[in-house]
């Protein structure tokens, strides 16, 4: 059983590491910012996800599992937001600069 | 060569680099950055010393990896460094707002004076 779990760890962590490699290659080789953004998202979501998945069998306590999974979920949230924000910040450079005014309307909380 | 020595050397290098930037950079915000580099270099020296001090003990089985006294000093130092950085940034922005300069050299020309300043 333990050998099986170890094998699972090896496979998942290796796959995750491959995604980091792919992400870095994409970041270095892709031609423009938006394409690089795509490469980054893949590394962020899949690379870290697979590493976390692979580490789960190596951690004994349920609290450790919760922590690891929370790391991945938060990384997903951050990665998604960052992609949106950066894509939005990159696009105005192509033309539509006009909406880059700060227009803080009242928030839904207030 | 172990990790503590290695990072101690790294800290020494950081102090040298930061000192160079602090002295040679005309831009005040760059000086703030360089100052932070020096700070982290000093902290790393503390870290290396703490690690060595803990290394003696971890064999004795106290469960402490690293001497906690330097660690506590570093944490305090990080807070103070942040407070100093915040003040420096606020001062600098006020300087730029009032005089249009971002350097500390009183007769040095700002490389790109904002338009319309000269006539004012």
């Amino acid at each position, binding site marked *: 059983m333990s050998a099986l779990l170890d094998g699972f760890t090896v496979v998942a962590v290796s796959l995750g*590491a491959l995604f980091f490699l792919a992400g870095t290659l994409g970041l270095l080789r892709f031609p423009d910012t938006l394409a690089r953004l795509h490469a*980054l998202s893949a590394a962020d979501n899949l690379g870290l996800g697979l590493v976390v998945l692979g580490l789960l069998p190596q951690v004994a306590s349920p609290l450790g599992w919760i922590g690891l999974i929370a790391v991945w979920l938060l990384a997903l949230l951050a*990665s998604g937001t960052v992609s949106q924000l950066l894509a939005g910040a990159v696009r105005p450079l192509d033309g539509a600069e006009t909406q880059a005014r700060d227009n803080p309307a009242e928030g839904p909380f207030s | 060569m172990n990790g503590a020595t290695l990072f101690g050397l790294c800290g020494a290098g950081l102090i040298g680099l930061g000192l160079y930037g602090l002295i040679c950079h005309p831009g005040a915000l760059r000086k703030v950055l360089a100052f932070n580099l020096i700070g982290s270099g000093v902290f790393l020296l503390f870290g290396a010393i703490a690690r060595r001090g803990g290394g003696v003990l971890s064999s004795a089985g106290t469960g402490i990896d690293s001497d906690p006294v330097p660690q506590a000093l570093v944490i305090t130092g990080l807070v103070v460094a942040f407070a100093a950085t915040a003040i420096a940034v606020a001062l600098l922005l006020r300087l730029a707002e009032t005089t249009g300069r971002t350097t500390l050299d009183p007769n040095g020309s700002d490389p790109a004076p904002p338009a319309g300043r000269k006539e004012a």
Partner: protein
Amino acid sequence: MTEFLLAAAAFVLGTVALGVLRILRGPADADRLLAAQLLGTGGVASLLLLGVATNAAGVTDLALLLVLLAAFASVAFVTGAAVRATKAAGPTRPSAPNPQRGGEA
């Protein structure tokens, strides 16, 4: 197992460290920020690997802290881009009609 996890950590760290080249090369500041973001995620991954491999204390909390703050650089970047855009938009420095400005010594 420990050896494998350490090797994986070294591999991931080495890979994303290559991304530093993108920080150096740019060309746009957004590209540099992308590289920073990748280094952040890769750093978290290798941190988790190192932590599980060496049983270091507090590593999961540190990883949580890092991913919690991961988006902040980009948020600050976008905010800064908006500030820069508004500053660049006006003819002079349009930031404020500040009467004290006139009193430049």
